[in-house]
């Protein structure tokens, strides 16, 4: 503390100015998320002036031209699509994470890891295009009588999209475990597979869970790739290959035909608010998982 007295006046003034700037930008980040919740929330809640909450959340009839706004099909499809894509991605992503963390030779790992990170950066429209030009025709051929659009191709594309996210977070979790866990298990005579299954994966579980939830968040919020393969009919899907709509694609699809301030437009903001709450909830779950792993 004594050296503070030796700072010149310019130094002091600059120091406090910069400190103010840094604190200010940090506060601004907070301000952004709060105004986001506030504005989207305000606009979304306006919906309830025209549409009862019961209709919005429980009716399956989405016919805006006749003022019927039932968003239940979108909610259900979002839920189903997310679960299916995570279920498809997790086994492969987790195996890949174990492979990279514990089995692959160093050279293989050093080549693969950046390659996998690269795939997180590939634009979602590109994934969507591949789904549309390759996957949809393939599914239509495999399942005659369908056109190939629906939840199944969307889930497959999403699974590929979230695979790198789940994989890299899980791999980090496994690699950051203390070496002694593995050594102790091997010294007790366990094989590598037994060590992985009984020691490493359980110990890395909170980190793996974080990866899965991050992937889930990405799947729920993904818009463009899903839009290109899901068919976009506002109805409950009767099968996995039946055209349907999720929350994100409903917003994209209906936005151009609505005017600011109408019930229809507000209903879209309400959907955005639902998405916002789901993603905030996922963040809370990640925080809780992190806290639990700190305790143990």
């Amino acid at each position, binding site marked *: 503390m004594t050296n503070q007295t030796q700072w010149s006046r310019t130094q002091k003034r600059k120091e406090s100015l910069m400190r103010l700037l840094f604190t200010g930008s940090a506060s601004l980040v907070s301000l952004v998320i709060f105004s986001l919740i506030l504005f*989207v929330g305000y606009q979304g809640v306006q919906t309830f002036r025209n549409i009862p909450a019961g209709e919005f959340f429980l009716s399956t009839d989405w016919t805006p031209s006749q003022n019927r706004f039932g968003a239940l099909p979108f909610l259900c499809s979002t839920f189903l699509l997310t679960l299916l894509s995570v279920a498809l991605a997790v086994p492969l992503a987790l195996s890949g994470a174990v492979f990279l963390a514990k089995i692959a030779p160093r050279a293989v790992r050093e080549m693969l890891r950046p390659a996998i990170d690269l795939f997180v950066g590939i634009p979602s429209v590109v994934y969507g295009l591949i789904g549309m030009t390759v996957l949809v025709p393939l599914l239509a051929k495999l399942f005659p009588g369908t056109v190939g659009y629906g939840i199944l191709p969307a889930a497959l594309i999403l699974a590929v999209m979230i695979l790198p996210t789940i994989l890299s977070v899980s791999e980090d979790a496994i690699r950051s475990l203390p070496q002694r866990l593995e050594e102790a298990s091997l010294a007790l005579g366990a094989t590598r597979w037994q060590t992985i299954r009984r020691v490493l994966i359980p110990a890395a579980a909170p980190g793996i869970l974080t990866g899965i939830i991050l992937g889930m*968040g990405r799947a729920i919020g993904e818009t463009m790739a899903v839009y290109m393969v899901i068919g976009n009919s506002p109805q409950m899907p009767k099968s996995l290959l039946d055209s349907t709509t999720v929350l994100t694609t409903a917003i994209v699809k209906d936005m151009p035909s609505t005017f600011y301030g109408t019930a229809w437009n507000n209903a879209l903001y309400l959907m955005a608010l639902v998405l916002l709450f789901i993603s905030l909830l996922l963040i809370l779950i990640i925080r809780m998982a992190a806290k639990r792993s700190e305790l143990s």
Partner: protein
Amino acid sequence: MRMSRLTDRLATCFFWLAGCLIVLLLGWFLFKIMVEGLPQFSWHFLFGKPEEILAGGGVGPQLFNSFYILFLSLLFSLPIGVGAGIYLAVYAKTNRFTGLIRISVEALSSVPSIVFGLFGALLFVNWMHMKFSILGGSATLALLNLPVLVRVTELAMRAVPVSYWEASLALGSTRWQAIRRAMLPSALPGLITGVTLTAGRALGESAILIYTSGLSVSRHFPDFNPLAMGETLSVHLWYVQAAAVVPDARQIAQGSAALLVIVVLIFNLAIALPCRMLQKRLTGGK
């Protein structure tokens, strides 16, 4: 005993298989995009103007808009993101305010891009009367970049050995001088890597831009007017597939996809990789 050795062998085989499957999947993906997209490339496709009804439109203005919007969005978000990152890495004490900032960053990074898009449409397009414009799009995109930049900056600053910080303070520097003269220069490679990866992701973003920067391009090219409509390359890819009437929509989409992937590859290989190597050398090969 023999049983467990056998399962161990089987498990090892299984994990190798899984690894190969992932590589094949990703490799096939890249291959498919390139094989279908590269033949569409021509001087006219890359730099020409798009067509409304006829075949043979280019993506020149869209390519230009992509980089212009990216540049503007980084211009808005870099100072704030880096500032907040420095705050978290250097100044933050463990108190309520820091906790609030941290949870805000996490929450912000989990917000789906379409929600940002609606927020931007509400705030910038409607209330601030920017209409569908390059400015509105880049302001919204800046919000998406913000949490990533904060995290990247914090990580890069924390990777600098604490001794630099201490030595600088011990020589009588203020904290700001230590940040500017000692911390930032050695955090720079990590920072550039992070910003590049952020930029690559922002470049491919589309859901956020449809209702903030619009679906058509200015008649002039290149048009630097930030209040002009600014459809980007990824939005164009989606738009030609979803709504356009041009007969070669599919070819344009495939060409645009390959172009997008190439740009992301260049961002990764040409800037991020050398920086990572440089950083390794600076921090002693960790």
